[in-house]
């Protein structure tokens, strides 16, 4: 049995080799560049990065935007996943196509579409004025709000699908049992349904946060150069400043955050799974 398992494990070798060469090796080279100097090893670039007030503002903005994007995507995705789990036949197909089809549309096209939506005489401003919520056009283009809305739109499927996968397997008799014991709808949701779906929420949030924290094209097009994010700083360092140590340092900081998110979410998902 052990030999059989070992042979099956060999199937992972091509994938691991691919990741080692295409992913791990370049990352190690990148990390090496961030600490290698003519005199040996130095963490001077890290010290310089963290002591620059502008870099700290960019780091904070990147984390804030990623967190807000994750929260917005979760708020939209959670009820959507439940609706999908109840849908049958053609409705389920409609839901799945609605989730997957927008992913085939390039971010550049979406960004141009959003600019039409968000502009001063665009649909949103016209609607707000028509229903009397605003007297004149509100600035939406090139704002952090527009960035969060746009990013949540792009990453929504990555939040919906993991939650949907968990919700679909939810035993519907459990909330019913709680109801038969007199639990109110709110109590049933917070003490039965939500805890059982948390692994999907954690997985979706980890996906969304990891992608939102490293997004480059979306902020470049929606908020531009006046609200730079970490990825934009990396591109600027490599392509325009031609400062590889700085670019490698920022990449390493971003990578450390992403690794923390993945490891923490895995730990959280295991812990939640164990509790259940």
């Amino acid at each position, binding site marked *: 049995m052990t030999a059989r398992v070992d042979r099956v494990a060999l199937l992972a070798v091509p994938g691991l080799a691919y990741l080692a060469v295409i992913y791990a090796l370049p990352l190690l080279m990148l990390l090496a560049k961030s600490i290698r100097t003519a005199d040996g090893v130095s963490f001077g670039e890290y010290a310089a990065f963290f002591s620059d007030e*502008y870099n700290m*503002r960019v780091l904070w903005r990147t984390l804030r935007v990623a967190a807000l994007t994750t929260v917005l995507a979760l708020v939209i995705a959670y009820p959507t996943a439940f609706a999908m789990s109840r849908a049958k036949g053609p409705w389920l197909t409609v839901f799945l196509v609605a989730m997957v089809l927008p992913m085939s549309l390039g971010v550049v096209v979406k*960004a*141009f579409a959003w*600019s*039409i939506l968000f*502009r*001063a*005489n665009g649909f949103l401003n016209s609607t707000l004025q028509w229903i009397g919520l605003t007297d004149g056009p509100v*600035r939406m*283009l*090139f704002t952090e709000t527009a960035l969060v809305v746009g990013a949540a739109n792009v990453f929504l499927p990555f939040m919906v699908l993991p939650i949907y996968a968990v919700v679909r397997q939810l035993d519907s008799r459990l909330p019913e049992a709680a109801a038969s014991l007199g639990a109110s709808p709110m109590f049933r949701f917070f003490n039965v349904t939500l805890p059982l779906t948390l692994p999907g929420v954690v997985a979706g949030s980890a996906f969304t946060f990891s992608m939102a924290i490293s997004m480059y094209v979306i902020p*470049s*097009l929606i*908020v*531009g*150069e*006046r*609200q*730079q994010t970490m990825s934009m700083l990396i591109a*600027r360092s*490599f*392509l*325009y*400043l*031609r*400062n590889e140590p700085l670019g490698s340092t920022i990449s390493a900081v971003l990578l450390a955050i992403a690794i923390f998110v993945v490891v923490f979410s895995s730990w959280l998902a295991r812990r939640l799974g164990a509790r259940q």
Partner: protein
Amino acid sequence: MTRLLSNGTSRRNFLKTSTIAAAGTLAAPSILRAQSSEIVIGCAGSHTAWMEQIVTPHMKEAIGADILFEGTKSSVNLEKMASNADAPYLSVVQMDDPVMIQSVEADLLTPITPDAVGNMTDLRPDAVHMEGMWCNYVQPWAGVAYNTDFSEGVPSWEALWDPANAGQVIIPSLQNTEGMWTLFVAAMLGSGKPFSEAQYEIEAAFAKLEELKPNLLSVYTTMSQAFNLLEQGEISMLSGNFSSYTLPRKAEGVPVDLAAPSEGIFAMPSGICLVKGGPNPELAQAYVNEMLGPKMQAEIADFASSVPANTTVNAGAEIPEGVPIFSPDWAFVAENRRSWIERFDKLMAL
């Protein structure tokens, strides 16, 4: 167990054949490219229209070359050349003068010579740089692009700072070459000196740029998006835009025009160079020769409303009369640009 397949192929032979097949598959594009008439040209993203419509078909007919072009910013072209210096895949690059200077310093270019590129002898003397390391092929002029639904013109660069235009202006980042124009305008207005002297007054330039912030909707690195907002009327002015982009759009009936403010306009430094050690060098030289020849010069200059560099050609954009045209000290720009970019980003950040 040593036989893997029914036809008797051994495991060793199978692995050997697979390795050769994989290596062949990976190497195939390079091998085919080396043997084919295909050359890869790095150029500006904004040149896509005329590269596709004019240059590609002409090169196929004139020199039998299949052109594969990669449109991006000059700085990105420089990075591509530097990253692939050991095995270049670009044969020719069309980019701006300040980045050309950096490329020469990094030893990434090979000189263009009249022996191989005969049309070079017909160029204006000031279009050939650093003993033929690169040539300017056409020169658009740069001013202020504006939406004609909101304004009848931009008589002075001061209009960018006019409080009436709050939130109505977009300027290019200093990462883009055309971003330098707003910097030099700020230097001129801030110091009160003419462009030729003001270009060195960088402290005055940044102080004046800070005053521009209330009027800025954004700072762009992707020009097409900013231009789209100008066309839609979301902004009224786009600083530092150039004739090769605005005037063709105007000719298509879009409500935009390019103003030449009275203080002066700028000559865009569009250059062409041969990549050192690039593939198909003879074809690359033939390509450059065609680009500098009268037919291509006339067609590109007309299409992109630019001034041809070939003195035998009478075509293209008309320079606005009575307005001084300024070409900056690009060596000074190349030397200081990185620190300017960092300072600019911090100054403009929200």
